[in-house]
């Protein structure tokens, strides 16, 4: 289940640099409508999907649906959902994600896909509920959820939705080039991401899908992690339990790509989050996440798509490549960061999930994957960068 909370409004006041994005959104909208029509075996004159009929409606809790949104470049949501801008009775705007079940009807096994989508929706809603109940300030949580009946030519249909706080953009819009790169912003964002993960971990939850498009930016300064649809919590089997890769494979830890499953929940789930956090450090400072960077140093024959052996056999090659990644990463950094950040990435992204985290924390019972030290590190570095002391 994807979150499109980072999508921007289609606005008449859109600025010149955003024109390309508007064009993209229009194209995207058209292609999506056409695609769903084709999938349903209809012409473009076919009735729209129910999730696209919420415009102008007033929902439970007084939420007024203002207009439909299309994804901005880089927003990863929208796979099985339609985004809207909504407003509460106090005039505060938010983002609504309406579930699009129509795609399921065109699948070879609609019943199974519908079941899977429903399970995913329920799972994400439950996780969001937990996040909200536990006041996770660095996790984008749902403000409300519910369902609404819409009239379609085929009769009334129910559309389920989730309402999120509205972000300005995702992190990729802040790391365009190395020249214009804002180190202070990156370090503060990493501090926020680490805090969000720590908030989840402290309640036995793991995010599993941290990536640039899931790091939403509010007011250009504050970051939160979004899209908890691939999360896991201890003692519960998520719907995506048996997926070869729960999150985006581009960012997934190597053991996930090689189908290696740690029996220990902490090593598997929290270790994955540690890796993803370290990977974001790499991405923010070099434009390349750790996984593709590792793969760029490995032989094609060792690529997880074709490697026929198990992870234990390939891990020496992964580690050797990882070493080279750290060397390249180090060279990309400002001299004042060359000691701390490579060490952080080395500890967080160790190819062996059992060895991730701070060595001192690994030595103590129960806090092997603690992020406290990294939160402190990012905070200190960010403060120094903000004060232009780096």
């Amino acid at each position, binding site marked *: 289940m994807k979150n499109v909370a980072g999508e921007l409004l289609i606005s008449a006041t859109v600025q010149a640099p955003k024109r*390309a*994005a508007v*064009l*993209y959104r229009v*194209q*995207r909208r058209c292609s999506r409508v056409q695609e769903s029509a084709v999938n349903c075996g209809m012409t473009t004159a076919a009735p729209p999907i129910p999730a696209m009929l919420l415009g102008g409606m007033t929902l439970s809790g007084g939420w007024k649906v203002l207009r439909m949104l299309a994804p901005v*470049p*880089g*927003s*990863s949501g929208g796979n099985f959902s339609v985004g809207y801008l909504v407003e509460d009775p106090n005039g505060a705007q938010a983002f609504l994600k309406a579930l699009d079940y129509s795609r399921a009807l065109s699948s070879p096994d609609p019943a199974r896909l519908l079941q899977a989508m429903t399970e995913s929706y329920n799972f994400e809603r439950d996780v969001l509920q937990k996040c909200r109940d536990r006041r996770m300030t660095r996790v984008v949580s749902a403000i409300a959820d519910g369902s609404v009946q819409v009239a379609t030519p085929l009769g009334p249909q129910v559309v389920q939705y989730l309402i999120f706080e509205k972000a300005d953009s995702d992190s990729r*819009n802040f790391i*365009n*080039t*190395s*020249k214009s790169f804002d180190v202070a912003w990156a370090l503060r964002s990493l501090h926020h991401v680490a805090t969000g993960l720590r908030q989840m971990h402290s309640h036995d939850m793991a995010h599993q899908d941290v990536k*640039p498009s899931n790091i939403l930016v509010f007011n250009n300064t504050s970051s939160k992690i979004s899209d908890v649809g691939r999360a896991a919590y201890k003692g519960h089997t998520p719907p995506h339990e048996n*997926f*070869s*890769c729960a999150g*985006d*494979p*581009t*960012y997934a830890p190597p053991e996930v*790509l090689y*189908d290696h499953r740690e029996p220990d929940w902490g090593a598997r789930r929290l270790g994955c989050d540690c890796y993803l956090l370290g990977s974001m450090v*790499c*991405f923010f400072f*070099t*434009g*390349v*996440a750790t*996984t*593709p*960077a590792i*793969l*760029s140093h490995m*032989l094609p*024959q060792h*690529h997880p*798509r*074709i*490697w*026929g*052996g198990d992870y*234990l*056999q*390939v891990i*020496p090659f992964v*580690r*050797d490549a*990882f*070493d080279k990644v*750290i*060397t*390249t990463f180090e*060279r*990309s950094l400002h001299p004042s960061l060359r000691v701390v950040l490579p060490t952080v990435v*080395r500890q967080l992204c160790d190819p*062996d999930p059992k*060895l991730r985290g701070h060595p001192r924390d690994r030595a103590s019972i129960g806090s092997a994957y603690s992020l406290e030290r990294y939160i402190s590190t990012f905070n200190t570095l960010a403060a120094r960068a903000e004060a232009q002391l780096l």
Partner: protein
Amino acid sequence: MSAALTDKERHVVPRWRDSNVAGALGELDPSAERSRVFDGTEESWREKRDAWATTRQLSFAADLLGAALTLGKFEEADEAARYVSGRKSDASPALQLVAERLLHERIGSNDPQQPKFERQSLSAAVHLTRERLRNDPRNAIAWTDLARAYASLGFGVKAERAIRLATGISRANRFVLRSAARLHLHLGDTESAHRLLRDNELVKSDPWVVAAEIVAADLDGRTSRLVRRGREFLASRNFGPFHLGELACAIGSLELKSGRIKAAKKLFQSALIKPTENSLAQIEWASQRLQDFTLFPWQFEIPFSHEARARYSFAAGDWRRAVDESIDWFADEPFASQSSTLGSYVAAEHLEDFVLSADIASQGLIASPEDPSLLNNFAFALASQGKLGEATKAINRLDLRLAALSTQICYHATVGLIAFRLGDTEKGRASYNDAISLAKGPALAKLRAHAAVNLAQEELRIDSPDARSAVVSAIEHSRLVADDDFRGVLKRLQKIVVSKIDLLGDIDRIVEDVVRLMTTDKDPLPTTQATNPDRVPLM
């Protein structure tokens, strides 16, 4: 007298290369491949692709390139890769590397470079690898590469320690395991090599490891319990021919040793479908012991097949090529002594390039400072240049207890040479005669004759009254041996006989005898041209 490469048996001992070269040669490929598809990636891929197509910003290109590399969609990210590649000032080195990899991998131009042996570069490699290991001491590949560099520099104890750490970290990796076994074999510890391989889980699934185990067991004087499994692997359709080549050669060599020629030939033929260079070298070695089994020159076009080419060229009497290939073979495996033994021997005995011979031997002595054959060849080359002090020092380092009988014979002959050159003719004669009398039986007839020829040369060189009888004796000893290799020695004798007409008097019969010896066989004189119609020179 130089010591030749006298490997009555050759084994498909695992090659041990730098991990980069081994990888480029396909030796680190998984023996079984599969196609893995990640769930639900199409939507996310399309989103990244569309976002890049619309924005044309570096960060979106980076996101797309990362996905392309992970999902294997190289061509679909071509434009973004070129965009990043063209923005060197903006894109980070890591991002440029990803872009280059995407562009480069499709072109497939990652052929390995022929390494050059330079002691300085090995020392630099040690320094750099240790630096890397300081940052991450769990890098088993780096420990393995470090062990190889140490072994090549002659630091056996350090190499052993490094490889022990590598196997301690990763026992489930073929490269680490085979490298460790190779080091143990290099250090003469066949038992450890065999035990390491035999007890490893990989013998259940990896034909490369089974091949190495069979070889190690044979070298340790044992019968491998994995031969049956190896045959099952060969019969199964689970592995590609490249992965089975060394296994087929390992079992084929056992068959050859047991006299089951037909079975051996069949296995060698199967290994030739897609051989590694190590398999090719083994088959070339075996082909010289099998009838109706000769390799064709085009079969030597496999990268890094220097040993096979050196052996082939040696057998074909293509001395210059044999030396050149030996040098490249040595650069490929600088810790192994066979290449420098062959190279120094051919350079001295056939090219009479004693400077080159001494250079090759001295390079080989870095990794194997006590190797008797190399010490002998080094001393011989030095003495032949007139560097008698250094030659004496080198020959005195040779521990006869470590030397094979053939090397002991060469040792006595070399001591004789040095004595002659120092003016101590009595000692010289005595040493040469020791060599001749030590070389008893038909198996050592060639060495006996070689020593006799060298003695005759020395007698002729000092215009000794015993020269004529020494020449006649040499000819008598030489009647039993007249292969390509030995004809080169005789050619040298012929040259010196002709130049000493005054001393020898009526030499017509002597020269005739020598010429007859050189032409009694159907093969012509050894030149750079082919002497054996089946073994035309390699291009």
